[in-house]
C-alpha cells in the first residue's frame, strides 16, 4: 500500500527537483554566457569619466526608482517594491527554505518568525494582484503585455499561495499533498526562469552595468 501524496512529495523532492535545477542552472548559464560573449562594440573615444566604477554603482543605484515615478505610476512603484521584498523575505528567511539552501550550498543564515514570513507573503500576493490589475487596465501596459507575462505573474504568486496553504493547512487540506504541490509550483517557477522575463533577476545587473558604464564613459554620473 502506498501513500500517493507522499510518493508525489518524494517525486517533487527527487527527480522533480533535479529536473528543475538542471533546467534552471543550465538555462541561466546559457543565456548569461551568450549575453556576455556578445559584448559591446569597442568605444575608441577617450573616456571622460570612469566607466567601470559608474557601471558597478549603477547596478545598485537603479534599485531606487527615478523621481516622479510615485506620481506617474504609484501602483507599479509601491506594489513593485512590496512584491519583490515580500517574495524575498518569504523565500529567504523561512526555516524550511534555509534548510534547503543549506543542503544545496552548505551554509545558511538566521530564521525569522513565521508570522513575519506570512505577512510578507500575504503582502506580496496582494501586491501581485494590484500589479496584475494595473497591467490589465492601463491600455499602454496592456498592449505591451504578452501571454508569457501573465504566465510569469501566475507562476511567481503560486508558490506563495501554496506555501501558505501547506504550512497552515487552510481548509484542512492534507499537509503532505500540499507540501508536494508547493514544491512543484516552485519547480515550475525554476523551469520558467531562464526562458521568460523572470531572467531579469540575473540580467538586471548586466543591463544596469552597461547603462552605467556607457554614461560613465561620457562623464555622466548615475
Amino acid at each position, binding site marked *: 500500500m502506498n501513500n500517493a501524496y507522499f510518493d508525489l512529495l518524494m517525486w517533487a523532492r527527487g527527480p522533480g527537483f533535479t529536473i528543475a535545477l538542471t533546467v534552471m542552472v543550465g538555462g541561466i548559464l546559457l543565456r548569461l554566457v551568450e549575453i556576455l560573449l556578445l559584448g559591446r562594440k569597442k568605444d575608441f573615444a577617450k573616456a571622460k569619466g570612469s566607466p567601470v566604477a559608474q557601471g558597478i554603482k549603477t547596478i545598485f543605484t537603479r534599485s531606487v526608482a527615478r523621481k516622479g515615478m510615485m506620481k506617474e505610476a504609484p501602483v507599479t512603484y509601491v506594489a513593485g517594491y512590496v512584491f519583490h521584498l515580500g517574495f524575498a523575505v518569504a523565500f529567504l528567511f523561512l*526555516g524550511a527554505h534555509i534548510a534547503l539552501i543549506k543542503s544545496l550550498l552548505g551554509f545558511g543564515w538566521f530564521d525569522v518568525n513565521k508570522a513575519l514570513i506570512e505577512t510578507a507573503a500575504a503582502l506580496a500576493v496582494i501586491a501581485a494582484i494590484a500589479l496584475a490589475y494595473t497591467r490589465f487596465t492601463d491600455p499602454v501596459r496592456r498592449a505591451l503585455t504578452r501571454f508569457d507575462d501573465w504566465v510569469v505573474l501566475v507562476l511567481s504568486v503560486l508558490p506563495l499561495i501554496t506555501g501558505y496553504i501547506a504550512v497552515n493547512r487552510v481548509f484542512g487540506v492534507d499537509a503532505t499533498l500540499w507540501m508536494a504541490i508547493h514544491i512543484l509550483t516552485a519547480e515550475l517557477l525554476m523551469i520558467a526562469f531562464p526562458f521568460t522575463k523572470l531572467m531579469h533577476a540575473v540580467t538586471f545587473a548586466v543591463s544596469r552595468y552597461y547603462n552605467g558604464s556607457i554614461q560613465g564613459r561620457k562623464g555622466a554620473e548615475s
Partner: protein
Amino acid sequence: MADRPMLPELMRAHGVSRRGFLKYCASLTSALALPPALAPKIAYALENAARPSVIWLSFQECTGCTEAITRSHAPTIEDLIFNAISLDYHHTLQAASGHAAEAAREHAMKENYGNYLVIVDGSIPVDNPEYSCIAGISNLDMLKETAAGAAAIIAVGTCAAYGGIPHANPNPTGAVAVSEIITDKPIINIPGCPPIPIVMTSVIAQFLTLGLDSIEVDELGRPKAFFGETIHDRCYRRPFYDKGLFAETFDDEGAREGWCLYKLGCKGPTTKSVCATVKWNDGTSFPIQAGHPCLGCTEPDFWDNGGFYKPLSAPAGNYRQAGYAAIAAGAALGVAGGALARATKAKAVAAHEVVDAHDLEKKS
C-alpha cells in the same frame, strides 16, 4: 463461549475497582474521539462482552509490536482488555510450542469459524514464500488459511500494514502488506514501528464494543481517531517552529533548549499519528520529547523516504551530478550561442552594402 469468564469477573480477579473501570471507559471514549455520551455504552458493552477468540500471527517482524503492547503496565485496564480477549495463538506469549501451538490455532479457527479476530504483525514474503515459515507452513499459506474464517483482520505495525522495513528497498524477500494478499476481509491498519500500545488496545476495544462499522478509517486503512492529524500540528515544539527557532545539530543550544527538530529531519509535518498527545509508557514521552526527530513510522515506505536526518524541504535525489552537468552544458551552449550570434552579426556587417551620395546620384 459460555464457560469463558466475563470482563467483570476478570476485573475483580485483577483487583480493579468499578470506579477504575468506568474511568477507563471514559478515557477510552475520549481517546477514540467518540462523544462522551457513549461512555456508558462502552462500559455496558465491555461488561457484557464475551471473550472473542483472537489469533495473533507474527510474520517477518521484530517482535517490537508485541513488546509495545505488553508495555501497558499491569494492572492497567489495557492489560485487562488484552487478557479479556481469548488470545488463542501468539508465538511470543503462548505457553504451548511446536505441534501443540499449531493445534491451538487450528482448534480456535474451527471453534470460532467466521467470528474470530486475526491480528497480524510482520510482512509476508511473496518472492519466495519459504523465506519465512512457521511449523513448516509458509507465512503466505498461514495468512490465507487463517484469514478465511476471520471476522476481521487488524494489521498491527507498519510491516503488516504497509510492508514496513522488510519491504524497504531493495526488498530482498518480496515483502508485502496483509492488504495486498487478503482482499475479501475487512482490514484495519494500525501502523507504527511499533504502534502506540493504547492505540492497539483501543482499536481492539472499539471493535469488541461498537463493532467494525464504528471504526472510521482513512484512505490508508488507519482509524481516523488516531491517524487523523499530523504530529507536527499537535507537537509541543510547534511554537518553536512558528518562531523560527530550530536545533541545527543534536548538541547545539537549540537542541538543549528543546527547539523544533525540523532541520534535523523531523517527519512530523507529514506523519499522521497521536504520538504527540497520547504519547508512550502511560503518557510519559514520545520520540520528539526525547530529543529525536520523528521518523514518520506510521507512513508507508518510511524507511525509503529520503533519509531520516534530511530535512523534509531538502532535495532527496542525486541532483548534484545533474547540476554540474547543467553548468557545463549551459556554459557550452552559451558559448555556441554567442559564437553563432557573433557570426550572424559579422555576416550582416559584411553583407551590408555601403552607399554614398555618388552612388545615389548614379542610380537616379
